[in-house]
C-alpha cells in the first residue's frame, strides 16, 4: 500500500476514526492491528521477519534486564572490592553476549535480505566467476525497523531504557505503520512515551497534523513525482545529457529528493500528530545549511543521530581506539594525533551510512565522499576562520547565502551517485559540467524534451517559490507556518482545502504517470 495510493488515504482516515472511537486504553491495539494489516497488505512474508525480529529482541532484552536486576541485588551482598569488580565484569560479559546475539540476529536478517547478492556477486567476481543471489525477499522498511530494534536493544543494554514486558507493545513500536516506509528512526524512549497512551491529540495539534499531511502530499505528488520523469531521462541516458544537463539534473534531483523524503515524513508525522503521538523531526531546513556538517544535522536527523550514538561514540571510546589515540598523539603531535581516531570513527560511520543506503558501490562511494568532504572542511576550519575574520564575512547576509548555495551544490553533486548507473558514469557526468557546458540547452528548447513541458516548468517554478517562502518563514521565525494557521479552524480548513485541490489537480498521478515509490522506501 503506497503512501500516495487512494487505498492508503482511505486506510489512514479509517484508522484515525476507529482510533478515536475506541476507549483510550484500547487505542494502541488499533494501531497494532493497523500496522500488522499494513505490512500484510504489502506481503504476508513481512510478518515472518517481523516476528523473528520482535521475538528475539523482546526475549533477549528481558533476559538482559533480568541479568541487570539480579546483579544489582547480588552485588549488595558482596563486600570484597575485588570480587565486586570481578562480578561486575562477569555480568557485563553476560549482558554483552545477549546484546550481541540480539543485534546480530537483527542485523543478520538485514544483511542477508539486502546485501547477500551484493557481497556474493562482488566476492565471486574476484575469482572470475560472478554468482548472484537472487529472489531474496526484502521485507518492507527493513532498514528502518531493524535500526529501531537495534537502538532498543542497545538502550536496554546500556540501561537507558527499560525492557518492555508486553511483547505486543514492542511489536507496535517496531511496526508502527506511518514509519514503515521512510522512518523516522524513532527511539524507544521517545516514541513509547505517547504511542501507548491513547491520549486525544487536542484540536490544535490535530489541525496542525492535518495540514502537515496535506502539505506532505502536495510535496510528494505535485513536485517530487513530476520531477521523476526528467531526472530519470537525464540520468539514465547519461551519454546524451552532459554538461549543462547535469547541472539541471542536480537541481531537479535536489528538489525531487527533498520533496519526496520530507513529503513522506510530513505525512508520517502528520498522521502521528492527529493520533496524539509524538514522532521526532527528521528534517530542519536542510537546504539552509552553510556547511556539510550542518547539513547532516538537518537532513535525515534520526539516521544521523543513530549512527552517532550507536557507532561513532562507542567506537571513539572503545579501548582500542583510546589506545590508538594515545599512540597517534605521541607520534603525530597532540593537535593532529587526537583527530586521527575521530577520523577513523568518522570514516567507519560514513562507510556504514553508505552501506545502509543500499547494496551498491554508488552508495559506498557516496558515504565515503561525505566523509572526505567533512574531513577536509574540518581540517580547513582554522583557515576559514582566519579568512572570515579578515574580511568580516560572517556578518554578511550575501556570504551566508553563498555558503548555503555552495553546500547545496556540493551535496547535490555527491547525491547524484543515487541516480547514475555506476560510479565512473557519475564522475564522468559531473566532470562534463566543467568540460562541455552548452549554454544553448537553456534557450533552444532542449529542456522541453526531457519529460516536462513549459506549463510544468512554470508549475514547478511556482511550487519552488512557495516551498522557499514557507521555509524562509521557519528560518526567520523559528516556527512552522502551520502552527500559526492551525490556531484558526477556518484557516486550517482553507489551507487543507487549497492544498487538497492543488494536489488533486496538479498532482502527477494516474494514467500517464508511474507514480514512483517513495525513494527512501528502497532503503
Amino acid at each position, binding site marked *: 500500500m503506497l503512501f500516495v495510493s487512494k487505498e492508503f488515504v482511505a486506510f489512514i482516515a479509517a484508522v484515525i476514526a476507529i482510533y478515536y472511537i475506541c476507549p483510550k486504553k484500547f487505542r494502541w491495539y488499533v494501531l497494532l492491528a493497523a500496522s500488522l494489516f499494513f505490512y500484510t497488505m504489502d506481503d504476508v512474508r513481512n510478518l515472518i521477519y517481523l516476528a523473528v525480529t520482535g521475538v528475539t529482541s523482546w526475549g533477549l532484552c528481558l533476559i538482559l534486564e533480568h541479568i541487570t536486576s539480579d546483579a544489582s541485588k547480588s552485588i549488595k551482598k558482596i563486600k570484597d572490592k575485588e570480587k565486586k569488580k570481578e562480578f561486575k565484569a562477569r555480568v557485563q560479559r553476560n549482558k554483552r553476549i545477549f546484546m550481541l546475539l540480539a543485534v546480530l540476529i537483527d542485523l543478520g536478517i538485514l544483511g542477508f535480505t539486502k546485501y547477500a547478492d551484493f557481497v556474493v556477486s562482488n566476492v565471486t567476481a574476484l575469482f572470475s566467476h560472478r554468482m548472484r543471489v537472487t529472489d531474496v525477499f526484502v521485507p518492507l522498511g527493513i532498514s528502518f525497523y531493524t535500526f529501531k530494534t537495534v537502538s532498543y536493544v542497545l538502550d536496554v543494554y546500556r540501561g537507558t531504557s527499560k525492557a518492555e514486558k508486553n511483547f505486543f507493545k514492542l511489536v507496535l513500536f517496531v511496526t508502527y505503520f506511518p514509519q514503515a516506509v521512510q522512518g523516522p528512526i524513532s527511539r524507544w524512549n521517545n516514541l513509547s512515551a505517547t504511542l501507548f497512551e491513547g491520549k486525544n491529540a487536542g484540536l490544535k495539534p490535530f489541525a496542525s497534523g492535518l495540514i502537515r499531511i496535506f502539505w506532505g502530499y502536495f510535496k510528494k505528488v505535485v513536485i517530487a513525482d513530476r520531477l521523476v520523469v526528467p531526472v530519470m531521462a537525464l540520468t539514465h541516458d547519461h551519454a546524451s545529457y552532459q554538461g549543462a544537463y547535469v547541472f539541471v539534473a542536480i537541481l531537479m534531483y535536489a528538489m525531487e529528493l527533498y520533496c519526496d523524503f520530507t513529503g513522506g515524513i510530513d505525512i508520517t508525522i502528520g498522521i502521528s500528530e492527529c493520533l496524539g503521538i509524538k514522532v521526532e523531526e527528521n528534517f530542519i531546513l536542510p537546504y539552509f545549511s552553510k556547511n556539510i556538517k550542518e547539513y547532516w544535522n538537518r537532513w535525515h536527523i534520526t539516521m544521523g543521530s543513530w549512527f552517532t550514538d550507536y557507532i561513532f561514540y562507542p567506537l571513539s571510546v572503545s579501548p582500542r581506539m583510546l589506545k590508538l589515540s594515545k599512540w597517534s598523539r605521541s607520534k603525530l603531535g597532540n593537535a593532529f594525533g587526537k583527530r586521527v581516531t575521530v577520523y577513523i570513527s568518522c570514516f567507519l560511520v560514513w562507510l556504514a551510512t553508505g552501506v545502509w543506503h543500499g547494496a551498491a558501490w554508488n552508495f559506498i562511494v557516496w558515504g565515503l565522499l561525505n566523509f572526505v568532504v567533512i574531513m577536509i572542511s574540518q581540517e580547513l576550519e582554522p583557515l576559514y576562520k582566519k579568512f572570515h575574520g579578515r574580511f568580516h564575512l560572517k556578518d554578511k547576509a550575501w556570504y551566508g547565502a553563498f555558503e548555503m548555495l555552495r553546500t547545496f551544490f556540493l551535496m547535490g553533486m555527491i547525491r547524484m551517485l543515487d541516480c547514475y548507473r555506476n560510479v565512473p558514469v557519475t564522475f564522468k557526468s559531473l566532470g562534463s559540467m566543467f568540460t562541455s557546458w552548452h549554454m544553448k540547452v537553456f534557450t533552444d528548447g532542449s529542456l522541453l524534451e526531457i519529460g516536462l513541458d513549459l*506549463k*510544468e516548468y512554470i508549475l514547478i517554478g511556482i511550487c519552488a517559490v512557495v516551498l522557499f517562502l514557507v521555509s524562509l518563514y521557519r528560518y526567520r521565525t523559528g516556527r512552522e507556518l502551520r502552527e500559526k494557521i492551525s490556531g484558526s479552524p477556518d484557516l486550517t*480548513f482553507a489551507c487543507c*482545502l487549497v492544498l487538497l*485541490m492543488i494536489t*488533486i489537480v*496538479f*498532482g502527477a498521478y*494516474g494514467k*500517464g504517470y508511474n507514480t514512483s515509490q517513495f525513494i527512501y522506501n528502497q532503503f
Partner: protein
Amino acid sequence: MKAIKIVTRAIIYPVIASILLWTCQSLLVPKYQVGIMEGAMMHEYYDSDMPHEVLFVGDCEVYENISTVKLYQEYGISSYIRGSAQQLVWQSYYILEDTLRYETPKVVVFNVLALKYAEPQHESYNRMTLDGLRWSPSKWHAIEESMTEKESMLDYVFPILRYHDRWKDLKPSDYEFWFHQNTNTFNGYYMRVDSLPERNFPPARPLNDPNLGRVPMSWLEKMYELCKENGIELVLMKAPTQYPYWYPQWDRQVMEFASSHGLDYFNYIHERDQIGLDMTVDTYDGGLHLNLSGAEKMATYIGAYLDSTYDLTDYRLDPEVSAKWDEVIAAYNELAAAQYAELEEYGELRSWGINAMEE
C-alpha cells in the same frame, strides 16, 4: 454558542469543499462540444422532455445511421437513440435499465454489432458512454462490468481524478462550456451532411471462433428478459454498413436467437437496395457510417416497418409533443443548412468532426 459554531462549520465546510471540487471538476472534464462529440450524447437524453415510444440502443451504427427527425416527420414516431461510440452490449442493457427509470418505450431496437465484443475494450469509449449517465444502480453496474484493467470506480465517482491532468491542455471550449453544454444531437441522432464514397474494405479475417461469445449473448438474453418484464417489444437490427465486418456465422446465430425468442431481426446489409442507399453519396466516411441523406433513407425504411408493425402514437397530432418536435426540427434544419453552406464554401466540413478538433 460554541455548539452553534461547530454545527455551522460542519455544514459550511463540506459545502464549500464540494462546490470547489465540482467547479474544478466541471472545468477539467472533457466537454465533447467541439470535434469529437460522442462523449456528450449520453447526457443529452435527460434534457429531452418529450415521450419516446421507440428507443434505439447500440453503437455508432445507430446514432449516425438513423434520423429520428425523419422518423417523426414521416410517421409521427417519437423516438430517441441512446447510443455512443463502441457501446458494449451490457452497456446497452444498463442504458435501457436507466431509461426505464424515466419512461417505458413501446419498442426497443438494438443494433447487434456490439455482440462481437465479449469483454471491455477501451477506457476512452467507456468514459464517453458512461460519464454522461446519471448516477443510479444501473450506472454503477455498467461501470463495474465495463472497466478495463487499470480503471477504478473512484475515478468514475470523481472524474477529476481521471482528468486532472487536463489542466495542461485546457482549450477555449473548456471555458466556454464550463457550466453549460450545447445539445449536439437530435434525439440522439448525430448529423453529418458531407459525403465520401464507400471504399474497398480489407477482406474479412478468418474467425478463430465462429461463435459469438457466451457473455454478450447472455446480455442479449437479459435485455430480452428486461423488455419482456416491461412489456416492451425488442427488435434486433444490423445497420446497413459493411465494415466492421459482420460475419455470416454471427448473423446466423442472431437469427437463431431471434427466431427462438420470437423477435424480429433485420440485417439491413442485405436490404441496401430496398432502402435506396447509394453508398457513393450516402456515407460521409467511406462507408463506415451514413450521412444525413443515408440516415434519412434508413429512417424512412425502418419507420415503415415500425409504423406498420406496432401500435405507435402519431405525435404529429399531439400539439404539446409536436411543439417540442418543431424545435428539434428547426435546429436540425439549421444545422443541416450550416453544414451544407460550409461544405459548399470549403468542399469539406471544418467546424464538425475531426477537422474541428482544437489544437
